[in-house]
């Protein structure tokens, strides 16, 4: 049976007359890295704020580790670690002192976890240096360390790579992969940097203007983003036969409108067009196509009309 870490049931949030979230049904499976994609103001942070208890939904239910009443949710939040809109640090304290404060906050016995957590994020040598003097990358890593204290099963990271330099981004990505693979931590990560999410996430949720447009796995996304040759001819059935017999491939798809998606011969499209033309087919459209996550996202949100 699939185990869900987080499920939201028709969650809506309204501020005065503005509907910020509209009946969002989001599901995150245990062990996944869920990339939460959306423009500024799409509702990502609002949903994260509802899940973490910073605000209450106007309608709908939040289910965290299978718990959904208020008291149970408070208890369930002990099993999560968060970075919400930037790392929450006491600037006049050192990295170890910040972790000590959060250890006490979470009621974790023993101080051993502090050194262990600092080692995981590579901040074990920062000594008494105050966090206000840390670089942005160090602050983000410390933010993740704070989220990690108490061995959470679920990490909620709102824009954890914002403002990082390329090396910092790589460091955080590798760290999150390690946490997911080695420690089995489920991660919800929201980011504007879609190319980065593409290297990390196993599942995606696309939110736009408060509506969750789509949830898909990385395989589904790759399939949707797959490169192909878009072909439209006067006789698609015959074209399909020619593709199989003359071009000797079955890696194609005929869509209901007669358009053919050919997933082979991407390097030699001329051979395809010549073969089809030689067989007397009239070519109406012929072009290589495909999307990356960014263009898929842009197309996805561009295709939605709101009244």
């Amino acid at each position, binding site marked *: 049976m699939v185990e869900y870490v987080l499920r939201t049931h028709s969650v809506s949030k309204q501020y005065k007359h503005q509907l910020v979230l509209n009946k969002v049904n989001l599901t995150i499976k245990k062990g996944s890295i869920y990339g939460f994609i959306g423009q500024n103001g799409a509702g990502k942070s609002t949903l994260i704020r509802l899940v*973490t208890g910073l*605000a209450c939904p106007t309608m709908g239910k939040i289910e965290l580790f299978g718990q959904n009443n208020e008291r149970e949710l408070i*208890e369930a939040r002990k099993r*999560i670690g*968060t970075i*919400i809109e930037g790392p929450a640090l006491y600037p006049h304290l050192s990295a170890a002192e910040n972790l*000590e404060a959060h250890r*006490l*906050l*979470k009621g974790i016995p023993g101080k051993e976890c502090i050194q262990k957590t600092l080692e995981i994020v590579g901040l074990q040598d920062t000594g008494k240096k105050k966090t206000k003097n840390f670089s942005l990358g160090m602050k983000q890593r410390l933010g993740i360390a704070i989220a990690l204290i108490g061995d959470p099963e679920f990490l909620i990271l709102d824009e954890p790579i914002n403002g990082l330099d390329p090396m910092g981004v790589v460091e955080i990505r590798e760290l999150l992969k390690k946490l997911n693979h080695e420690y089995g931590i489920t991660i919800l990560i929201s980011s504007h940097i879609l190319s980065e999410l593409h290297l990390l996430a196993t599942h995606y949720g696309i939110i736009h203007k408060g509506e969750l447009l789509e949830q898909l796995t990385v395989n589904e996304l790759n399939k949707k983003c797959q490169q192909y040759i878009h072909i439209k001819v006067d006789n698609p059935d015959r074209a399909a036969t020619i593709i199989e017999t003359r071009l000797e491939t079955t890696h194609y798809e005929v869509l209901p409108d007669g358009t053919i998606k050919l997933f082979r011969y991407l390097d030699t499209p001329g051979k395809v067009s010549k073969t089809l033309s030689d067989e007397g087919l009239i070519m109406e459209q012929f072009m290589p196509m495909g999307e990356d996550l960014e263009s898929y996202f842009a197309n996805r949100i561009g295709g939605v009309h709101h009244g």
Partner: protein
Amino acid sequence: MDNLLKFEFFKLRKDRSFWTLVYGLIASAAFYPMLIFFNDGAFSSELVSVKELYTYTALGGNNYIVRLVPCIQAGFFISSEYSIGTMKSMTASGNSRFRLFSSKLLVFSIGAAIISLIFPIVITGITAIFSGFNDMPELSYFVRTIGLTILYASAFSAIMALVAIIFTDSGKTIGFLILFFILFDSILYALSQKFSLFETIFNYSVFKLFLDISKPNIGNGEFLKLLLVPVMTFIVIGLIGSFVFQRKEIK
């Protein structure tokens, strides 16, 4: 709750604004008796009555300290948690907001109580040493006034914590609280002169009763009133603060 109290104490111990206030007050309190002892360039402490100095200078001067100095602490200790983002991690930590606010209020009150005791204790201590323990206040009077000072400091700190939890900016909190504590009792007093309802409110308010704690002779009924009003204020305002915090969206 135990872990939250430890968490708040840890922060108080590491809070530089708190220690700056404490050291500043200790230095002022230590310096103040010297102004009395050094007269025309000569040191004379023989005629100084510790009792009088304690009653009028230490407790009288402490009136402003108890009501104004912890306002600064409220801004830095409570409101600043919003701006640095730690209020979010606290709220998302799996602790109920009632417990979060209660522990914050308790530890903040202890901080305010420490601040409120510096002036009377340091001034009295130094004066006693230099004057050779001349005309010391009675122990029962000293204990009673110190105890009541702690209670009133706690009652005021509940009001400060309520404001600090509403305002999410330390500057706004400090500014509002200082103005409030400077003006509110005068406004309440003015209203009490015109309306009997406000007269009752004023007479049973911590703002009025705090001025009575240094009275040398207090009857049992009055003492009970001096004792109960700050306790009730602390509980009622604390519950209101908790209610407000539970409904507040943390930004």
